[in-house]
């Protein structure tokens, strides 16, 4: 049994907190909320995450709920996804104010940077997934608009080391998107969940995916690369894409919709958060009533090896909680 300790509570937001994104240093995080703001928060001192200070409140960028937030894996840029239909690239001290990215017809649900920070993906209730190339200095070029999902797209996430995108949708599927000579296409559709797929995460190697769903299950998927083709030129006309096979389904851990999942790139533990008010940690462990009676919208492992035992969560109570998980088998 793991030892789980609540270290701190961050109570700056005035409405439910939706998502957390750690800075790659693991030394601070930002969170977004129904109060239309993004908070950047840091523990003081850095090595003892017991007392946290809000460094910065980004407000006025969005007219409605900020549903998603993401730190770039390089640099200090953040991107925000809002129900106002835009994707914010909030201005920061020393940066020129950059106009938000427009184009989605309605609520943007999630935003994600690729591993190099050169690509930005967004998804929306309008069923589409957009990919922008980040050219720097506020210039963005629209690279692709992918419209294969048949329902609301809940989350987008990039592969940890490659330009491969995954998206999760209300149409119960996960789609994997790849690039072929500057044209993006859906290379795989992962079916198996029987209700909305709310979130997903890759492992550190990027050869496994975990997904969580309204069907109260968590599924693990393994990437299988097809055998090399040795036959004649004619067959080379057809693309051979890796397939994703469901290798495990975990049920009965949560009793309501699972909203978020985080797969630590450092120690490989998976944390999930749910509408049943609990956080599960696999090797399975549970923090019950982690946010009292509130739904828990997001869990995120700290990405830094120095703070790998730190887990953050965001709930409908508007609070961000910081946990320490130790003594795991």
């Amino acid at each position, binding site marked *: 049994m793991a030892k789980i300790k609540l270290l701190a509570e961050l109570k700056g937001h005035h*409405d439910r907190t939706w998502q957390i994104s750690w800075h790659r240093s693991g030394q601070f995080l930002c969170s977004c909320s129904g109060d239309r703001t993004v908070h950047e928060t840091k523990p003081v001192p850095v090595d003892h995450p017991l007392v946290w200070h809000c460094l910065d409140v980004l407000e006025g960028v969005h007219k409605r*709920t900020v549903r998603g937030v993401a730190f770039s894996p390089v640099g200090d840029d953040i991107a925000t996804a809002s129900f106002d239909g835009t994707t914010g690239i909030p201005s920061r001290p020393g940066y020129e104010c950059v106009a938000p990215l427009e*184009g989605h017809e*309605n609520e943007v649900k999630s935003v994600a940077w690729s591993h190099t920070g050169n690509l930005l993906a967004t998804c929306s209730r309008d069923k589409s997934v957009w990919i922008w190339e980040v050219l720097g200095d506020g210039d*963005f070029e*629209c*690279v692709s608009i992918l419209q294969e999902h048949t329902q609301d797209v809940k989350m987008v996430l990039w592969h940890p080391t490659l330009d491969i995108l995954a998206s999760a949708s209300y149409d119960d599927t996960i789609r994997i998107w790849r690039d072929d000579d500057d044209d993006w*296409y859906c290379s795989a559709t992962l079916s198996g969940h029987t209700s909305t797929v709310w979130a997903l995460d890759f492992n550190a190697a990027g050869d496994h995916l975990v997904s969580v769903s309204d069907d109260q299950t968590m599924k693990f998927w393994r990437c299988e690369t097809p055998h090399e083709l040795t036959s004649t030129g004619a067959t080379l006309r057809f693309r051979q894409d890796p397939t994703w096979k469901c290798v495990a389904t975990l049920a009965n851990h949560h009793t309501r919709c699972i909203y978020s999942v985080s797969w630590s790139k450092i120690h490989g533990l998976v944390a999930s958060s749910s509408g049943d008010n609990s956080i599960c940690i696999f090797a399975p462990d549970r923090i019950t009533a982690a946010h009292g009676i509130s739904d828990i919208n997001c869990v995120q492992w700290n990405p830094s090896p120095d703070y790998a035992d730190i887990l953050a969560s965001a709930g409908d109570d508007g609070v961000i909680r910081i946990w320490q998980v130790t003594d795991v088998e």
Partner: protein
Amino acid sequence: MSFSTGLSLTDLNDYISPSQSCIKPVEVNKKSDIQQAIKIDQTGDYYEVAHDGTSTKLETASISLNDCLACSGCITSAESVLIALQSHKELLDVLDKNRVARDEGRLDDVKVVIVSISPQTYATFASKYSITLLQTAQRITSVLKNLGVDHIFDTSFSRDLSLIRIAREFVDRYRTAKAAPRSATRSETSLPMLASACPGWVCYAEKTHDYVLPYISKTKSPQQIMGSLTKFFFADKLNTQRQVASNDTLSTITPDRIYHLSIMPCYDKKLEASREDFFIPDFNAKEVDCVISSGELDKLMEERGIDFPNVDEVPLDRLFTKRNLARAAGTSSGGYLEYILSYSARELFGLDLKGDDVERGESSLLKIETVRNADFREVSLILPDGSVGLRFAATYGFRNIQTLMRKIKIRRCQYDFVEVMACPSGCINGGGQLKPGLLESITPAVNGSSEALGNGPLALKAMKPKEWIQLCERVYRTLPTQDPMANLPLQDVVHDWFGEAGLDSQKAERFLATKYRALERESTITAVVGW
């Protein structure tokens, strides 16, 4: 609901697709206030059940093209919704009615039936059957004449007029913009000027990007210029002829007595034809009565059991048809970039640059770059001193439109003119074109196209959408090119129609120019939900 073939392509997924939120309220014909129940039978039909037990079948609500234009729910045509109103069946109905009216001696009820055909339509059929574009046009002419169509026109003819007018508009705009001090407001003299021929793009701009409307050229599309030509100029010609021939025993031909159908690569052309700007209120008529796609023409022929490979080849109509179906230099999307660049090189800088040079990229006056992908090209005019005279671009497909919109929004757009087309690869790949999936039964290509097809039927069957589009584009470009100003019959039309003042006349403005208006997006949800 069945989707058009245009939406079934998976490799080219850059179309503007139908929106989920059709918000057009449908009129409810409520007959009584007595509370009733609704029943659904096994076939899915709805019935209204009154208290006395009687049930009435309820009509399915239908949405017209005009509804779609007025609604901000969809960002463009939503091909799946709106095809019912304008289909090839409508043409057959009109032809049947003509036959009955003739049999019954009601000659005043007989409509003059005109079909205008786009060159992209010829290109898609020529590619499918491995015949030349001229043969294709001759066979389609034969098919339509046998069905009872009176005249067949070529929209390359009206496109020349569209090109000439837009080039003049650009030069005027450029001079005004350069003479005026830099201004923060976006006006009808701001640069870049954006092409107006693609109705998918225009509709999208009106519904989602009102700030770009002032940049869009006022020149009507080839389809709508052909509409004015047939309904006004040609009607007048017919009346003159008839007076001469019959001493005025027949009544005058008015716009409502001409039925004008166009065959287009694109479903959004149906929407364009339905715009209120192209309605002729005095006669309760439209410039273009009906638009069908290349695919719908294919379907019509299939339904009529027409064996296209064995159709006779008959001479083309000569009126409003270009000799040898000559095209303007440039891509199959019309050659707007090429013509405007060559025209303004001459008008603004006194440089001799031909449209063909721009198409081939063979001139020291040019710098051509592919910006991101094949659908985003930059073409600059380089002056003899090495400086950049004009910066043009062609942006096709939804993603490149987004990049362009952002450049304009944040005022970092360096272009003077942009040829904007909603479809990836442009008009040759319009949603209404024939698709490679339909080609499996066709024998290997023989002329010109065999290189693209590799060897034999296997390669053909395995043809990817992209290869098919490239083939169609190449086939389109086998047409000879002609400078729009060298279209002498067109010069005669301009003189005849607009008089001495020609394109400077108010009459030309009336028939060749149009306008755009922003559609407010409904934001009721925000107000109610508040998050």
